[in-house]
C-alpha cells in the first residue's frame, strides 16, 4: 500500500504464490479423493476421475524411454502425463522450475511444516546441514533421477511409486500406497522442521530435471549491483539457500523461481532483484 508515493506496508512474501499453492494442493487433494470415490461407486460431479499417475508430469519423463523404443507408455501412465510433462518443460524453459515453487503440492506441504520449524529455531532454521555436506547432497537428486529412469526403463513398471512421498501424501487412505512411500513422506515432513524443502533439495528426481533449466531459462532472477545494499536479505530468505547477494544472475540448479528474494518481497530496494529478460546496469564505480 502506498501513501504520498511511499510504501506503508511492504509485503515480505509473495502472497499470490501462497494462493496458487493452496489452489493446486486443494485441486490435487480433491482429485485423489474423487478417484477413490469413483472406484467405490461414488464421485464428485464435474471433477476429473483421473488417477494421480495420469496427472503427474514426472510420469511423462520416466516413460520417455519406453515410448521411444516400443511406442507405448509405462503401465498406469497415459497421454495426459506426457502432455503435462511437455507443459512443465515449456513453463520451465520460460520461467525455471515454477512447477516446484508454485504448483507442486508436496513442496507446499513442506513449506507449511517449515513455518513450524522457523518458529522453533528462528535464524538457525534451514542452516543445520554443514555447508560441505550440503553441497554434495544437493547432487543426490540426480542419482535418484538416474535410478528411477533406469529401473522404469528396464522393468516397464512404475517402481518409484513404492518410494514416492508425493504419491503417498495423496493416497495414504488407499490400499495402493506403499510402506516405503509412507516412510519417506514421514522422514521428509520431520526433516522439514529443520531444513526447508528437504525432499526438493536432496531427492526429488523431477526437481532435478526441471532444475537444469535454470542454466538457460528465458526469464531469470537478476540482481542490480548498482542499487544493491548488500544486506543479504535475499540470500537469507531463499528457501533453497542460494547466495543471491553474491551473483548477478541466479543460475543455481536448485532455484525454484519462488521470487521470495525479489524486490517484490524481501529485497527492500525497488527494482534491484527482479525477474526479467533484460540486462541490468553494471555497478557504477
Amino acid at each position, binding site marked *: 500500500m502506498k501513501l504520498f508515493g511511499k510504501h506503508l506496508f511492504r509485503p515480505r512474501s509473495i502472497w499470490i504464490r501462497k494462493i496458487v499453492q493452496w489452489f493446486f494442493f486443494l485441486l490435487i487433494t480433491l482429485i485423489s479423493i474423487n478417484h477413490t470415490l469413483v472406484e467405490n461407486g461414488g464421485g464428485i460431479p464435474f471433477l476429473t476421475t483421473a488417477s494421480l499417475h495420469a496427472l503427474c508430469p514426472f510420469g511423462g519423463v520416466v516413460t520417455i524411454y519406453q515410448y521411444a523404443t516400443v511406442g507405448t507408455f509405462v503401465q498406469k501412465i497415459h497421454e495426459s502425463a506426457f502432455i503435462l510433462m511437455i507443459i512443465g518443460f515449456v513453463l520451465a524453459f520460460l520461467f525455471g522450475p515454477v512447477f516446484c515453487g*508454485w504448483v507442486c503440492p508436496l513442496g507446499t506441504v513442506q513449506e507449511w511444516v517449515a513455518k513450524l520449524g522457523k518458529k522453533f529455531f528462528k535464524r538457525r532454521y534451514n542452516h543445520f546441514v554443514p555447508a560441505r555436506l550440503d553441497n554434495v547432497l544437493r547432487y543426490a537428486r540426480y542419482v535418484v533421477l538416474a535410478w528411477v529412469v533406469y529401473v522404469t526403463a528396464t*522393468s516397464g513398471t512404475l517402481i518409484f511409486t513404492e518410494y514416492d512421498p508425493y504419491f503417498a501424501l495423496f493416497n495414504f487412505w488407499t490400499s495402493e500406497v506403499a510402506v516405503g512411500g509412507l516412510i519417506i513422506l514421514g522422514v521428509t515432513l520431520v526433516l522439514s522442521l529443520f531444513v526447508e524443502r528437504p525432499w526438493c533439495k536432496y531427492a526429488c528426481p523431477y526437481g532435478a530435471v526441471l532444475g537444469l533449466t535454470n542454466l538457460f531459462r528465458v526469464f531469470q532472477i537478476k540482481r542490480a549491483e548498482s542499487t544493491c545494499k548488500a544486506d543479504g536479505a535475499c540470500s537469507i530468505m531463499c528457501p533453497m539457500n542460494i547466495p543471491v547477494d553474491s551473483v548477478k544472475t541466479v543460475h543455481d540448479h536448485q532455484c525454484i523461481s519462488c521470487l521470495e528474494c525479489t524486490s517484490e518481497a524481501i529485497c527492500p530496494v525497488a527494482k534491484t532483484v527482479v525477474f526479467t529478460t533484460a540486462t541490468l546496469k553494471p555497478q557504477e564505480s
Partner: protein
Amino acid sequence: MTITSKSLAALIFVILFGGVAFTTAMGWWATESTKEPVTFTEGEFAGLPNPADIRGSYTFGDIEKSFGIPPAVLAQAFNIQTDGPAFAIKSLEEIYATGEFEIGTASVRLFAAFYNGLPLDLSTDMYLPESAAVLLKERTLTPDQLAYLDSHTIPNPAADPSAPTPAPVQVTESAPEEESTERVIKGKTTFREILDWGVTQETIEQIMGIPMPNALTTIKDYCTEKGLDFETIKTALQAEVDKAGQ
C-alpha cells in the same frame, strides 16, 4: 521484459490449463486407456468390434458400449451378484479362482462373440458357466458354435455341489489400474515381467516360434502384431511361469 509475481501466476494458469484445454480439444488428452476394442477390418464383419480384443481392464459398462450386452445380462451369465457397469471383468478370475477350468476375460470374449454372432478363434479352450450357456442358446448359434459351447460349459458352482468350488461370489470392484502382484499373465503383461519371473528368453522364443522383441513390449500386443493366438501363447507361457515359481 520484467514480470511480476501476479503476471507469473496468471501465466502459469494460462499455460497449464490452456495446454490441457488445447490438447483436450485436439483429442490428445487421455487420463485412462481406451476401452474400445479394435474392429474387424475386412469381410462381412468389417467395422464391427472384435471380441478377441476385449481386455481384463474392461468393465461391464465398456462391454455394453462396444457389444451392446447389458450389464444385467452379463451378471446373469456369469452368475454374479452385481449388474453395476463398473464391474471389471478381470475380477471374474478372482471369483472363479479355485475352479478347475478358467473363467475370466477369455470367457467374456467367447460370450460376447456368440451373443452377437461374431467370429472368434475357437482353436483354444475357453469356458463358460452353465448360466451363460443357457442365455446363449436362446440366441442364434451355428452348429459349430453349439458344439463348442456344449463341450466348454461348466456347471454353475451353486447348481452342482460336486462341481469345482469357486471362491465365494462376492463382488469387489477392483481398482481399474491396480497392479497385481500375482504371477499371472494378463493383457498388459510384458516380456520383461515373465523374464523377471524366471522364464528364459530361449523358452519364450521356443514357445512363440519367433524372436522375442524389446522386453518392454506387452505379450498380447506382440502376439496380435505377429498374428499369433494370444490365448495359446499365454497358456504355454503361464505353464513355464508356474514351473519357474515352484
